[in-house]
């Protein structure tokens, strides 16, 4: 792909983009498909433009941690599949994959989105642990927002598997009707600064031209649960204020898009 950084930057200065969108407009349509994997306890496939991301939630019973004997846990992992982008290679997770996983993880964890105490089965002994795996199918930019949306959709659609009362073994083939104790619904929105303009939902081509970005995870009340600045250019406090305002507006928009598919 030929990335013309100057063109993207010059266009941004005129409030224009290569694909004709306004700077604060997401690609269309945004689609969310639930239960795309029967082997996962919850799963979703999100498509924003040509960016396609899958997430699957697996539940397991593990020993509780010594410092939190009354709680279960949550972990988010991301795999940038070589299938999804010609530049991705097989091997251990790249720093891009690690950052993606950790930012989505913090958004959920720090919002206390899941009531971890409710995941506890026997204090000091065993509890449910939730693992969310984010998998890219086609990376055409803005993985943070697509992955965050897919992670929330998968968590919302997850059901506990049944547990054999005598042996304590999990029967993954039979799900219960019990959902995860999701008490808040954090969503990340990433705002990109290009040539002193703010834009949302960049394509892969546009991602090659940004100066700085800020991912803002907010819950349903607008409370911020995670921030991650990226890029090598600085941001002023004034810019950060504008970014958070815009991110909150866009999070509400993504939430309303997600709701269309949850009914």
């Amino acid at each position: 792909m030929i990335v013309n950084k100057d063109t993207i930057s010059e266009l941004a200065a005129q409030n224009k983009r290569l694909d004709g969108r306004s700077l604060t407009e997401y690609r269309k349509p945004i689609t969310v498909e639930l239960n795309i994997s029967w082997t996962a306890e919850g799963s979703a496939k999100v498509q924003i433009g040509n960016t396609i991301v899958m997430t699957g939630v697996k539940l397991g019973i593990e020993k509780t941690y010594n410092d939190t004997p009354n709680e279960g846990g949550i972990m988010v992992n991301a795999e940038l599949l070589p299938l999804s982008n010609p530049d991705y290679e097989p091997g251990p997770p790249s720093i891009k994959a690690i950052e993606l996983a950790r930012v989505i993880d913090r958004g959920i964890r720090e919002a206390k989105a899941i009531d971890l105490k409710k995941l506890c089965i026997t204090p000091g002994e065993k509890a449910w642990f939730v693992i969310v795996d984010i998998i890219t199918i086609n990376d055409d930019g803005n993985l943070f927002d697509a992955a965050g949306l897919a992670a929330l959709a998968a968590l919302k659609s997850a059901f506990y598997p049944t547990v054999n009362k005598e042996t304590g073994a999990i029967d993954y083939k039979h799900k219960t009707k019990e959902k995860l104790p999701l008490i808040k619904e954090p969503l990340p929105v990433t705002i990109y600064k290009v040539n002193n303009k703010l834009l949302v939902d960049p394509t892969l081509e546009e991602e090659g031209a940004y100066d700085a970005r800020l991912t803002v995870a907010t819950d349903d009340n607008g409370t911020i649960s995670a921030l991650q600045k990226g890029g090598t250019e600085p941001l002023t406090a004034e810019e950060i204020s504008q970014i958070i305002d815009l991110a909150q507006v866009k999070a509400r928009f993504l939430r309303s898009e997600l709701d269309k598919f949850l009914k």
Partner: protein
Amino acid sequence: MAYTKRVDGRKIDELRSMDAKVGVIPNADGSAYFKMGNTIAYAAVYGPRELFPKFLQDPKKGVIRCHYSMMPFSGSGERIRPGGNRRSQEISMVMNNALEPVIDLSAFPNAVVDIFVDLPQTDAGTRCAAISAVAMALAHAGIPMKDMISSVAMGEVDGTVVADLNYDEESYPAIVSDIPIAMTHNTKEITLLQMDGEISKPQLMKALEMAKLATEKVYALQKKALLEKFAKE
């Protein structure tokens, strides 16, 4: 007590319901989706492109590299740790061997065609679904091919040869054999053959004969999906 009634009610030569789509991954040079019952495979082909490190290059022809991987949430039990294992490495290798005979990369010396298959959900027959998906993705990418490859697992469950075993049949409480097979469409040659379990030679030969018809059904769907894709373009 012969096995006459299959666990999911299929006829002995009946495949699970299938679905195929071509062009599902816009970034890839060729891509496909193949669903066999509850097993789903996504395949992407990138290349021919330059192969690094250079010592892997073949100055006479391009090479193919298959990478098979199950997504962490795709197993019917607990989560699978990502990063591959002995099983996925072996499957990648036998897939390479299964596809190589029909691919002609003599026009692309020193190049590589990278093939990636990832499965979001599985219920037995993953390498067969993977190969069937990849064959479509290779055709979609315009890679020169001498023939089409279609793949399906045959097997013997308690004395009866059946087509396309699902997980419940693979783990049926009797003597079971599982025989993944890939076959070329025109020449009916076998490019993938593995077996685990126990089977007599006559029953094996019967399974190989039945595989011709079974792979033919897969082929018909692959062809339909490819025609649909190219009719659109």
